[in-house]
């Protein structure tokens, strides 16, 4: 029989754990528990709830307003893992610096990042946005149209990314990708990167931006990027979107070209 004194001696450990990992508990609560309760209560998916909120609160045709509403909903009401406003600024800056003409986005989810990219693209540029989930894609399409971007600007592809990438050239006539934005399953980062390398769509100076490389984490992806010698790697340190205390980062890979 363990004495109560010994059990009490574990109290400091418990307290330490709670204090140190409080942000993760918050994340668990907001991303899992609240979602589950709301799902049961409303019968709608999280994305559809987000769309409803945006429909009622944002100004149609105004991308900034839609993004702000999204941020508000994600930080105050529920949690959706988007790129978020802070890392979004890094994305905006990159877009301004490089002015990409062809953008491939892997993982549309609700279309937050699609709207974010689309609003700062030059005229004539085109985004190919890949989403695997049918329901999410519907919501994303609505949101993109609501923000005022038409099909010439944003091409939504509802298929898994590993099927899309090899067929980009044939089906969509893409010759070269200037920017690839990855925000889908973290496990798919590495295979998709390798597919991209194999497809020959990357040219010298193409940029691959991968979100969430530190917190959910994509160590294999980072390792490959660092070791292959094909890229110049920069990791932008930031925190996880909408939650302050969890460290996260975006990896910016500049393709150096195959020698």
């Amino acid at each position, binding site marked *: *029989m*363990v*004495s109560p*004194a*010994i059990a*009490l*001696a*574990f*109290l*400091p*450990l418990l*307290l*330490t754990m709670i*204090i*140190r990992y409080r942000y993760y508990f918050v994340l668990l609560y907001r991303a899992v528990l609240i979602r589950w309760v709301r799902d049961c209560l409303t019968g709608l998916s999280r994305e559809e709830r987000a769309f409803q909120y945006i429909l009622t609160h944002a100004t149609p045709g105004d991308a900034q307003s839609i993004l702000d509403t999204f941020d508000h909903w994600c930080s105050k009401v529920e949690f959706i893992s988007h790129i978020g406003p802070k890392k979004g600024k890094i994305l905006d800056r990159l877009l301004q610096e490089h002015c990409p003409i062809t953008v491939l986005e892997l993982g549309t989810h609700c279309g937050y990042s699609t709207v974010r990219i689309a609003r700062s693209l030059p005229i004539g540029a085109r985004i190919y946005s890949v989403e695997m989930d049918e329901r999410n894609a519907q919501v994303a399409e609505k949101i993109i149209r609501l923000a005022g971007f038409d099909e010439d600007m944003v091409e939504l592809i509802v298929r898994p990314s590993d099927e899309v990438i090899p067929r980009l050239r044939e089906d969509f006539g893409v010759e070269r990708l200037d920017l690839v934005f990855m925000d889908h399953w973290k*496990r798919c980062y590495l295979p998709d990167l390798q597919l991209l390398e194999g497809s020959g769509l990357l040219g010298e100076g193409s940029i691959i931006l991968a979100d969430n*490389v*530190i*917190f*959910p*984490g*994509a*160590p*294999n992806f*980072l390792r490959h990027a660092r070791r292959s010698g094909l890229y110049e790697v920069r990791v932008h340190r930031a925190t996880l979107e909408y939650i302050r205390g969890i*460290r996260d980062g975006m990896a910016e890979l500049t393709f150096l070209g195959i020698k």
Partner: protein
Amino acid sequence: MPRHKLIASESDGKDNEFSLYYVEVEENSQGGQEKQTTRDGKRRRERNGEVSRRRASEKRTTEVDTKRAEKKHEKRHKTARKEGEKHEKRQRRKNADEEEAEEESNKEKKNIKNERTKTLRRDDEKEKDVKKKRKKHVKNEEDNANSGKTKQKDCHDMPLKEKKKKRKKPETTSESESKSESDSAPESKDNQAVGVLGSLTPEELEKLKEAVDERKKLIATMRGKPWPMKKKLVVLRSSCVLQRQETLLIISFLYYSNCQKWMKFQRDFENFKTACIPWEMKIKEIESHFGSSVASYFIFLRWMYGINMILFGLTFGLVMVPEALMGKPYGSIPRKTVPREEEASAMNFAILWDFGGYAKYSVLFYGYYNSQRAIGWLKFRLPLSYFLVGVGTVAYSYMVVIRTMARNANEEGGGDDTSFNFSWKTFTSWDYLIGNPETADNKFASITTSFKEAIVEEQESRKDDNIHLTRFLRVLANFLVLCCLAGSGYLIYFVVRRSQKFALLGLENYGWWERNEVNMVMSLLGMFCPMLFDVISTLENYHPRVALQWQLGRIFALFLGNLYTFIIALMDAIQLKRAEEEIVKKNMTIWQANLYNGTVPDNSTAPPITVHPADIPRGPCWETMVGQEFVRLIISDTMTTYITLLIGDFLRAVLVRFLNNCWCWDLEYGFPSYSEFDVSGNVLGLIFNQGMIWMGAFYAPCLPALNLLRLHVSMYLQCWAVMCCNVPQERVFKASGSNNFYMAMLLVILFLSTLPAIYTIVSIPPSFDCGPFSGKTRMFDVIQETLESDFPAWFGKMFSYASNPGLVLPFLLLLVLAIYYLQSTSKTYKRVNMELKKKLQTQNEENKKKNKLAALKAANELEQARKAGEQRSSSSQHTQNSEPPVSSTHTTTRPPASRGHTSSGHLPGHPQQPQKNSHSNRR
């Protein structure tokens, strides 16, 4: 570039060269117009030609300007590159002497030679380099490069080159900085060759030396040539003879090179000295990678090692060795023999590991020592020595700790002069004498770390937060920590009480958990509470150095509970043993009576019965028990430390490193990550360990030896573990290598640990049948005994007078007064020092301001003078109207300090000198 230029002008010591030089100077200065009339026709002609040409090329000047800037820049790189190439060339020379000779013979034909050198170069250099070389060649011609090679060339192709130069010179130097320097260069060179030399860089000296060597070689090869004397003379004359200032230069160069050799030797000697300091290299390496806070732990560890070395020397040399050599051998008396009932298991490893059996009955412990007053042929007073060593170790420790604290206090003079800290770091960090790549890596790391530290300091000084919030948070954090401490203190108290109850009822009735409850609770609290404190301390937002001190203080308070329980348990055990001893004493007399009664007949003429010492009953000897407890504690503590190190750090690092390949999140960046080096925990472990040593060393003379072993091993093990499996802290901060905070804690622990030791020595009578003080009522009686029997009577009398309270009390009072006086004076000195420092700083700033003002003023004056001169010249001389106006702007940028050169005298021998001097004076 000034130095470079200086040498350059040195090389053209010829008349025509000088005249050329003057042309260029005159051109740029309007003030020199009048002087021109005194000059000879040739030069005027040259100048006129120059001027006319200049008019034609006036348009180009602006673009030339930019080009020149580029060129200058390039030049700088070139000289550096040239260095390397020169070396190569020299090597080649040595290898192919024949070719060299041929080359020399063909010297006059420059083109051929150029071809040859080029082909030679092509042999062992890459194409790229060759291109650079060619460029450099051209450059050499235009900037009068200082190497002997080019010098020769210059001399050979003088007529050819002169023209070229005339064309180029005005452009290259018309209003650039270098001109102003070349302006003042010749006279300063002529007069103060040595002075100039002092300001030369080693590379340039190298070049000079090379040039001289080359000339010597040339003469040598010429001697062997089957040429007519006339040809030889021509060649020789053309290839520049050694001149006076050059010989001067060479002499001073030799002096300088000797100096360099001396410096190199000094450096090597320093290296050697560093290599002699134990673990210095290791600590430096750790410091460069992990910052000074981690290094401070290792320095502390090394310091501790030194202290323990001396403690060990004292106990080993004065107690253990004499007893082992001169005392009665093992088995002669009961206290030196393993009792009969233990004999069977006395050699078992488990028993020995627990320091029982043979280990218990050896010099390692108090009980083994005999109470014989003097042993061996030396009449060594072992009991006295034992006592004095016990007291002496503690006294020495006090002395050393306090002395070190006092010495460190000097270093912590308030207010560091960290103006331009980052500039200093940027420009002066690198050590250019580093020759091996590993050292270079370390240096790189250390510079990076020092930058990080400096940035943390800077951030701290600029931090201005909400002060009320910070205060509130700090109070809150302290409150939480106090709660935690109180809670753990109560828990410990509760557990100890309970265990005492268990002990009274008999431990056999309880399970493992109950029996080990105290230890478990202690170690669990000791493990988890620091983590909690660490988390709480993030609230406080302190500078990491201050945070470390708080953390140390808190864990110290926590560990005091540990100490408390240990001492309580020990005291209880001592009481038990003493009660047991009383019983044994009684039994002893009965046993002896029985022994004699049973065997000895009434007429006791027979020899006394000899009983084997192992069979004689003996007391429990509480002193040995105490010593054993301490030794066990030290051993278990050491083991725990090493095992935590291996599992917590090494295994974790291995897992993180290799599992990361097949894990779903990033182990290295994410959750477990690598461990940081726990400075506070390690320092406190060291300090408490030392406290145990101080407490127990009196009863177990082997403790310092064990501790020495432990420190030695942990030095290597921890150095390895830090470099291999830890990562630097997130905020690397600066901590002084000799940390007074550690020392203060050590002092407290020393005090706390000597208290129980002194208490036991003074108030508890020693065991009756073991140890050096057996048979005495108190341990310190040994002093009195010695005084009475070994010293003359008057000494004892004097001692008794001296220990009279009437004398001791005034003496103590005097001591207190002296301490007070010294302390107040030191405070005053400190304040004065601070004020002086402040004064110096303000004066520095003022000087800076003054200098700036003076420079500004001088520049303004120059500007005005220049303008006036310009107006005058434009009115009087029409030929010079076309002078580029840029030259006036140049003067403003020119440092006023260059005036200083003009005041210096000039060397006779160059007719143009005075003119130039006055000329530059006017500028």
